[in-house]
């Protein structure tokens, strides 16, 4: 327990102390939130109805997909995991503690956005707070798992950035953050359901914001949780202590399993 608390405490401070993580955890999402708050209502007044969940989803994508993979890849390349292994630090701690501390940073950012958006921009507040919290946790868990998994399967920082952007960019365009899901063309709407951002926005709208969901919002929350669990399990299974180690537990394509809950939702939802 003492080891976990020490490790968690160090990782949490790193999220603030490290300039890159500080940028991705706080400066980028909060700066983007302020910018969107000033610009978007002029273009689309309906934006204010979903501004809070949209900005929370954006913050989550930035902190997890952009913030989590690179430090994991760099630590493996720098021999930090080898040192951890020798000193008995388990792979489960190496993978889950940065994810948990990132979620804690996201809680702080979410509280800031939720508390200030109505005051600064007259944004609509959630109407169901427990569901708001539940959806946030499901989304943060799913995205943190995805970020960790990208870090584990990527052989280099460059590849990690590529994988992260492959999810981040479509999430921004199709995830329902800027445009409602219902306004997307049919095919794009279906494809977007493979993204955690779409599922999260759907669950926020249907369960927390008092709006009509585009598809089953409870199913979205379940899909996010299951995808998160799969991501962490596969990440721990595929984890490699050392880039010089030629033996791997399994094939990196196993990572595609995290899409399974979304595919099932798409096919049977």
């Amino acid at each position: 327990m003492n080891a976990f608390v020490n490790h968690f405490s160090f990782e949490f401070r790193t999220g603030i102390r490290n300039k890159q993580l500080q940028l991705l955890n706080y400066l980028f999402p909060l700066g983007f939130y302020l910018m969107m708050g000033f610009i978007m209502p002029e273009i689309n007044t309906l934006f204010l109805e979903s501004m809070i969940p949209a900005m929370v989803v954006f913050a989550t994508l930035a902190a997890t997909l952009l913030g989590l993979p690179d430090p994991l890849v760099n630590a493996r390349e720098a021999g930090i995991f080898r040192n951890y292994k020798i000193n008995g630090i388990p792979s489960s701690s190496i993978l889950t503690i940065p994810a948990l501390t990132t979620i804690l940073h996201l809680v702080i950012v979410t509280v800031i956005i939720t508390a200030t958006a109505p005051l600064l921009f007259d944004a609509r507040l959630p109407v169901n707070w427990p569901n708001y919290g539940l959806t946030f946790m499901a989304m943060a868990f799913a995205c943190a798992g995805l970020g960790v998994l990208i870090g584990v399967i990527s052989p280099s920082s460059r590849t990690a950035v590529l994988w992260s952007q492959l999810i981040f960019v479509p999430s921004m365009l199709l995830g329902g953050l800027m445009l409602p899901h219902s306004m997307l063309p049919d095919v794009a709407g279906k494809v977007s359901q493979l993204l955690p951002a779409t599922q999260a926005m759907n669950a926020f709208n249907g369960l927390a914001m008092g709006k009509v969901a585009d598809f089953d919002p409870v199913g979205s929350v379940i899909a996010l949780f299951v995808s998160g669990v799969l991501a962490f399990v596969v990440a721990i299974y595929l984890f490699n202590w050392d880039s010089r180690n030629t033996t791997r537990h399994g094939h990196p394509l196993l990572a595609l399993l995290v899409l399974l809950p979304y595919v099932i939702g798409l096919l049977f939802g």
Partner: protein
Amino acid sequence: MTAPVIEVRDFRKTYGDLVAVDGISLDVRQGEIFGLLGPNGAGKTSTLESLEGLRSPDGGALRVAGIDPAREPRKLRNVIGVQLQSAGLPESITPDEAMKLFCAYHDVAPRFDLLERLGLNEKRNAQFFELSSGLQRRLALALAVAHNPQVLFLDEPTAGLDVASRVELHNLMRELQANGTTIILATHDMAEAEEMSDRVAILLGGKIVTIGTPMEITATGAGLTKVSVHTQGGSLINPELHFPAVSQQSVKDDYAIFFSTDIGPTVSAIIAHIEVQEDTLIDLRVERPSLEDRFLEVTTTGGAQ
């Protein structure tokens, strides 16, 4: 003789077609400082990493304090301490945090005294990337010994250290040795290996080409012992002189210099010559081949005796 703490039997490690270690065997006794030497690619790192539980052997058997490193990694972690060549710490961690973190995972109280002793007290709250390479190595050493391991692996421990830090580290090594810690020292610094090691093994091409005390290893080579003699009358400065076992001779700064293959007869003959010539001896120095000389001899001849 104390029981071996490290036992290596017919250890073999391969990477595809490359044979990194080819069936080596050695024992290291408790409280011994054992130098593992060899040029790059000799098999040192594969041997060390297998003993540390980072790699699995492809053949043979390894034991560290009675533990099989590949099969019992959980037991091994509290028995060994490792200072890796690269410090292997996150850039943003401070020495204080690193000490707390590593000691927590070893379930021991943090050893902040080690940070003080190794000159890290003023930088306890500096981030790792802000430390000089010397301080980074000192921190790695402090973390490696904080849980009082039975066996300590040091990989190039003094690389990048200044003279004072190097002396402090050697003192710490001797102190640990006196307390019964077994130390495996992998280094390219031959002077350090010769000074600190009780025994050394030189690896080449995955095999042990020589093993023994530094004295034994330097004595078995074909290296010549240098005898430098300064006399008042300069009776030895004469290229026509011939002494037993001397293969080369020269003159430098009023010293007659002889290179001998058998030091006893050479020195006796030189002393006798000085007496016969009624000359007066001012200075006589004997320099046996160093471990570095022997290392170069072994590695350049491919280990052929």
